[in-house]
């Protein structure tokens, strides 16, 4: 599979994601509660029952969620697709999984905060999810800022805690 692929995925309840996958390996990470698992679950629901799931998915190639721990069999039957993998799949960090990624015709979207030293991916393809109401999009974690090419695009996390009584 070559080139960029625009993915639009939404569900009737209103959550909507729009993003472009540009290379064979894309990493998605970021804070909790930004919608990473929701995105994965929506792809998985669409994969199971299509439009009848209430999820609508527009892309010029199939999108697949790697949900089964029998991931080897699942991957062997998927070609020229965008494969979404959630961090709950522990094998995501193994050399064997990396081998499948490297020698596959698929694009992979890996949802994980850990680094992948056994995979060659671009720093430009590490994203976090930006949420604006019910609309979600991918924004690069590392951005080109003039003299400091890959400055991290976020402020330091707030350390104050507010207890609800």
């Amino acid at each position, binding site marked *: 599979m070559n080139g960029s692929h625009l993915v639009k995925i939404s569900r009737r*309840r*209103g*959550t909507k994601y729009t993003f472009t996958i540009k290379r064979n390996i894309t990493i998605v990470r*970021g*804070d*909790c*509660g*930004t*919608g*990473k*698992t*929701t995105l994965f679950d929506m792809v998985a629901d669409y994969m199971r029952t299509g439009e009848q799931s209430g999820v609508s998915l527009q892309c010029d190639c199939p999108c697949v969620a790697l949900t089964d721990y029998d991931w080897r069999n699942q991957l062997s039957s998927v070609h020229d697709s965008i494969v979404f993998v959630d*961090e*709950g799949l*522990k094998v995501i*960090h193994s050399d064997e999984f990396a081998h499948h990624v490297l020698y596959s015709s698929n694009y992979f979207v890996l949802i*994980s*905060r*850990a*680094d992948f030293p056994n995979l060659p991916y671009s720093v430009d393809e590490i994203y976090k999810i930006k*949420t604006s*109401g*019910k609309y979600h999009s991918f924004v690069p974690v590392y951005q080109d800022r003039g003299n400091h090419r890959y400055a991290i695009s976020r402020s*330091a*996390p*707030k*350390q*104050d*805690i*507010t*207890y*609800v*009584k």
Partner: protein
Amino acid sequence: MLSVFFGDMPEAIYNTATYFKNSYRSSWITDPYAVSIIKDVDRSDVVSENVIESPVLGSISPLQLSGGVKTLLLMRFDRKQIYNASTCGDNCAKWILDMAKDRKLVVNLYHVMDFGREDFKIKVVNSGRIVHNMAELIHESIPYL
């Protein structure tokens, strides 16, 4: 004090969402500390033991909370296990440090969590060393990640 173990830890619960689904108690959700976590991390309001009001998803069940909140609740209420804290984003770090203030809390990390600019005290189990800021933590994590 907080202790972190970097890298693969077989005895730790890796998939905390699945463990949460099969082990959480309804009473956890309405505990004031849990309500504070859910409000801060997921920006959601607890309505009852089974209903949470999310600004994005609407009314959701506790099973639809973010992975980070689920892990924080497990750390708070099910203290027998060690959990994979790489399911938590940096916005959970202050809660992990807060829970470790008055007890021993061991977590498993597959990445370097950003614990903020202020000083802290974290024991890196792999080496046995105690670190006091992010620079020391990053340096200490290098051989194990």
